[in-house]
């Protein structure tokens, strides 16, 4: 194994992203090839359908949810803690029951999933942008620039997402006196998740870039005077997109889980705009009192969503790994 892949493995693991992306030899993946392997795996097809349905439910929440849990004027505390319809004392208006404030659990799940996904997508996009840029620069320029960027990455690795979120939360509170969670929680989450995820992209992209830049076509491009930026964007970037896609998919799942953990620690989304994690954290308080539906249904929704996305990521990784074919 070349030196590069050790670095990659370290990066992947330290980030707790789970599954380290296989080193990309790369990868002239023909679409039909991928499509073929896709159809071959029944699990993947099911996962893809599941993901699609969940995404649709989440993003169409305002139209498909029976209630709007954000409209304070429409919820009543007197409807609090109604059990799911198949149980005693239930209310036909609330299919999966209500939470401690009288919000419909089903609707809260749809809206919560939307927030979880938005947080996930935004943080992955931000992390990928930072990571790819720095990775390309480090790999292409090498030398001192490379050393500086990789040392920054080392510093970054010492701060897990949870720590970063707590830090940013505190710093923001210090700077703005105090912060309005409703406004800032979202941005704090994105920034802290992005800050803890970018290293993985950077290391992977850097590794691939170092391999690519010594190839003849890049050398040739350089010789004929094509500017570095163009070379990076036009020639190297497309070649490293495979592993990046794999990391991004897995990170999306990880971001959603991490956001849930942060909610448990009190730095996630506020209860007035609950994500799936916030819903679980709220419901935790009601597990022993018999009102299990407040935590369990959002928990199931979260598990389903993350499981599906992870399965897709799995398949993507195997499909993009030429050594396995």
């Amino acid at each position, binding site marked *: *194994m070349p*030196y590069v892949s*050790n670095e990659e*493995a*370290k990066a992947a*693991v*330290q980030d*707790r992203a*789970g*599954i*380290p992306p*296989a080193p990309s030899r790369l990868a002239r993946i023909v679409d039909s090839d991928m499509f073929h392997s896709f159809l071959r795996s029944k*699990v993947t097809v099911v996962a893809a359908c599941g993901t699609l349905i969940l995404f649709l439910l989440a993003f169409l929440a305002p139209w498909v949810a029976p209630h709007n849990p954000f409209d304070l004027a429409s919820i009543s505390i007197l409807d609090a803690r109604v059990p799911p319809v198949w149980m005693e004392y239930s209310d036909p208006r609330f299919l999966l029951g209500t939470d401690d404030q009288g919000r419909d659990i089903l609707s809260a799940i749809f809206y919560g999933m939307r927030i979880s996904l938005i947080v996930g997508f935004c943080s992955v996009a931000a992390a990928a942008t930072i990571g790819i840029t720095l990775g390309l620069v480090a790999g292409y320029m*090498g030398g001192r620039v*490379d*050393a500086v960027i990789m*040392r920054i990455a*080392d*510093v970054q*690795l*010492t*701060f*897990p997402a*949870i*720590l970063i979120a*707590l*830090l940013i939360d*505190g*710093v923001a*509170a*210090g*700077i703005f006196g105090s912060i309005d969670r409703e406004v800032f929680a979202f941005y704090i989450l994105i920034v802290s998740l992005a800050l803890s995820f970018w290293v993985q992209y950077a290391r992977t992209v850097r590794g691939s870039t*170092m391999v690519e830049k010594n190839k003849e076509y890049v050398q040739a491009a350089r010789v004929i005077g094509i500017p570095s930026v163009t070379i990076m964007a036009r020639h190297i970037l497309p070649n490293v997109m495979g592993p990046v896609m794999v990391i991004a998919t897995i990170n999306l*799942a*990880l971001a959603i*889980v991490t956001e*849930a*953990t942060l909610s*448990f*620690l009190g730095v996630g989304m506020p209860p007035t705009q609950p994500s799936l*994690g916030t819903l*679980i954290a709220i419901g*935790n308080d009601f*597990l*022993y009192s018999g009102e299990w539906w407040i*935590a369990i249904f959002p*928990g199931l929704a*979260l*598990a389903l969503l*993350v*499981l599906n996305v*992870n*399965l897709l990521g*799995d398949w993507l990784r195997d499909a993009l790994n030429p*050594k*396995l074919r």
Partner: protein
Amino acid sequence: MIGFAARRLLQAMIVMLVVALLAFTMFRFVGDPINQMVGIETSLEEREALRERLGLNDPIPVQFLRFITQAAQFDFGTSYQFRQPVSELFAKRIPATLELSFASALFALVVGIPMGIYAGLNRESAISKLFLSVSLIGISLPTFFIGILLIFLFSVTLQWLPSFGRGEVVQVGSWWTTGFLTLSGLKALILPSITLGLYQMTLIMRLIRAEMLEVIRTDYIKFARARGLPDRLVNFRHALKNTLVPVITITGLQLGAIIAFATITETVFQWPGMGLMFLQAVQNVDIPIMSAYLLLTAFLFVAINFIVDILYFFIDPRLRVGRP
């Protein structure tokens, strides 16, 4: 060699300095420590006097300089909550965290490796797929939720295992306490170790599977098979041996991550380790504990990174030419 090591050491020290600066500047702004140290009825003048005594009114560079010179001597000041030296508090909490981390790493390896080998060798079998799917659930649910469900099942409903704490601990030497030597201590370890180790188990299993899949396709293994060596021998003597090298490296590195992520498990199970102390410190704005924790974890990561780099230097001769 010496040049390489010296360069890496210098880089490691710069990293630590940057972390120290970050830790200092950030924590300097988290909440107001004074509010934590006094009761709600303390007057403004008393608060101001305390602020002065703590040096919170000094210029920031002066405070930073004081901070690093003291940290370098393992003096992290006095905890605002406990009014005891932070280094002493950490010394008392470290055994709990290390024992939990060790037990969960053990769990992850003992369960993860066999599952990974099986799944790697029998890629298409139903059991492999089951392993993969089940292990995915392990990373699809947040740690705290798994912990709470385990407590609900095994402590409250079945009453088999304790829901909190370390059980009975035995003093070993001057400052180490261990839960490994008592029945209640061992029982108390089970649920937290599973909660914390589930993620690493998944990781190791999948890593082994992936490595196995790659290794058994290499010419070297194909050649061994072609020579007519029995499958079992090929699989375990040749394939597994090759697989384990990266796994061991990564497990070493994971130890740092386990310690960092023990915070959540420790919170759920009221495990008296340093992660729990850190989270309580965050809630109570106990700045000395927070900065000490941050520096300790950073030190751990940097130290492990440094050692691994040096090891690679010996393992991989290509590196000796110098870093690209």
